[in-house]
């Protein structure tokens, strides 16, 4: 019925014309001239039909052009971003390869303690850059690879990611809680790429652990909301300042408070990409100094 709404007026016009014509035909209206009555009825009927059809056609094409332009804008912006990330990654690869090889050669020479330390630090930083390069590639690649569609047991997935998070060393100092429904039934399965979804949820938990301190609470919950399946990861951590909220999902963006904490700002961008690929939505709410909650909304199909 939703789809028919723009056609409401054309249909109304058509029905009106039909009723009027029938009325004229069967003589409900004053009989001026017999022939005129019939002709008028025919004319009105055809006119109503034509106007209604024209109107419907116009509305239809107008709506379609609207939809297409929205689509092309989002894919164009997405393509440009992907191209940029690919180019950036490409430019980093060769210098990094050369540097790593150079450092390996240096390691074979005779070095004193101070030199060894300097070398070790350079190796560590190069590794960090290599990881960034590889993350950029993943992000760019993500949107072009085919999605595996199988039935994903979300209940099991959330238990697994939670167990993995609990194993992390820092998790010992945080209070972790997982809430999943048992009644009236557990979380349904959804169609999707299990590994990608695992990665997305893992990233959220990882962030929650990273951006909280000892004694903080981290809660993960899953529940059904209408036709969506919702997964939420909430923490009582640093929170994100209001002026930074809009940017937090952008690639390489790191909030002021994140300085000093390891990471390259791609975690959330990856989550966004993955959830978008599944036709879902990611929203984030946060209060600086209080906490953050990230909500993943996935369509049930």
């Amino acid at each position, binding site marked *: 019925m939703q789809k028919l709404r723009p056609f409401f007026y054309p249909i109304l016009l058509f029905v009106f014309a039909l009723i009027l014509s029938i009325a004229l035909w069967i003589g409900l209206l004053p009989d001026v001239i017999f022939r005129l009555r019939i002709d008028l009825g025919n004319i009105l009927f055809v006119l109503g039909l034509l106007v209604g059809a024209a109107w419907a056609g116009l509305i239809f094409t107008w709506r379609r052009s609207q939809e297409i332009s929205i689509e092309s804008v989002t894919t164009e912006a997405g393509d440009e971003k992907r191209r940029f990330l690919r180019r950036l*990654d490409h430019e980093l*690869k*060769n210098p990094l390869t050369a540097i*790593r*090889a150079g450092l390996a*050669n240096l390691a074979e020479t005779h070095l004193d303690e101070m030199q060894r330390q300097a070398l070790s630090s350079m190796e560590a930083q190069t590794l960090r850059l290599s990881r960034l390069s590889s993350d950029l590639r993943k992000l760019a690649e993500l949107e072009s690879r085919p999605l595996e569609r199988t039935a994903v047991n979300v209940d099991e997935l959330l238990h697994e990611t939670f167990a993995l998070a609990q194993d992390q060393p820092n998790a010992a100092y945080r209070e972790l809680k997982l809430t999943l429904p048992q009644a009236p039934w557990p979380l349904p399965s959804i169609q999707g790429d299990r590994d990608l979804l*695992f*990665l997305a949820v893992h990233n959220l938990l990882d962030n929650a652990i990273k951006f909280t301190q000892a004694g903080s609470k981290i809660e993960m919950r899953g529940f059904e909301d209408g036709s969506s399946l919702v997964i939420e990861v909430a923490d009582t951590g640093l929170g994100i300042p209001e002026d930074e909220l809009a940017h937090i999902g952008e690639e390489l963006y790191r909030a002021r408070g994140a300085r000093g904490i390891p990471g390259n700002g791609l975690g959330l961008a990856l989550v966004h990409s993955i959830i978008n690929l599944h036709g879902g939505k990611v929203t984030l709410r946060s209060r600086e100094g209080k906490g953050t909650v990230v909500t993943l909304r996935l369509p049930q199909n």
Partner: protein
Amino acid sequence: MEKKPKILLVDDESAITANLAPILERAGLSVTVAAEGEEALQKAATIQPDLLILDILMPKMDGREVLRRLRHDGNWTPVILLTQVGDSVERAMALEEGADDYLNKPFDPHELVARIRAVLRRARPGQPPLATAARLVSRDLAFDRRSKRAWLGQEELTLTPKALVLLEYLMTHPDELLTRERLLDVVWGWDYPVGTRAIDTRVAELRRVLKDDPINPVFIETVSGQGYRFAGEVHTQEAS
């Protein structure tokens, strides 16, 4: 005394070749360098290397074109492709075109040495590498690479797409220690630490379907703390 294996290293970035050559030499390999495709083909003809390392993105003639020309001429010298080969489709294509292996940049130079050693050990002189065979057979396990289907005896196996990619890689790299990170990269194009679990899940799936006992494996062996190895002997079969 055994001769040193001859390596032809091809990359247009001189900083890379200048730094890699000494590392490979120290590893007991004899290295010749070429800076682009034409030069690579010429040098391959004259020095007859035991292995070629080819960068893909080079001006004029890229690494894949060099590879194609070599294979077209019936030259099956093992080749390792060096670069980001883009997505998994491109990777699969590169292997189908006759490369023995690939290594993504930026890489740890020692990893390159390890791969070279593995490829040389696997090499069958004068014959196409396992990576190009149409059909791979190990005992009663058969894998048809064109149709991406596998059979155990007469029974066709039902495997998820990723498990099939994994099985194919295992069978084209027999008797080689494959780390979880490397397998992750092959199957998904990633090396996220958390993802390594995903490999374990797929290996478990393969073992279940192949009826392979993890304690006494016939096919897939766990190398404790490091990764997996395909323990079965693999032979090629031309497609019937």
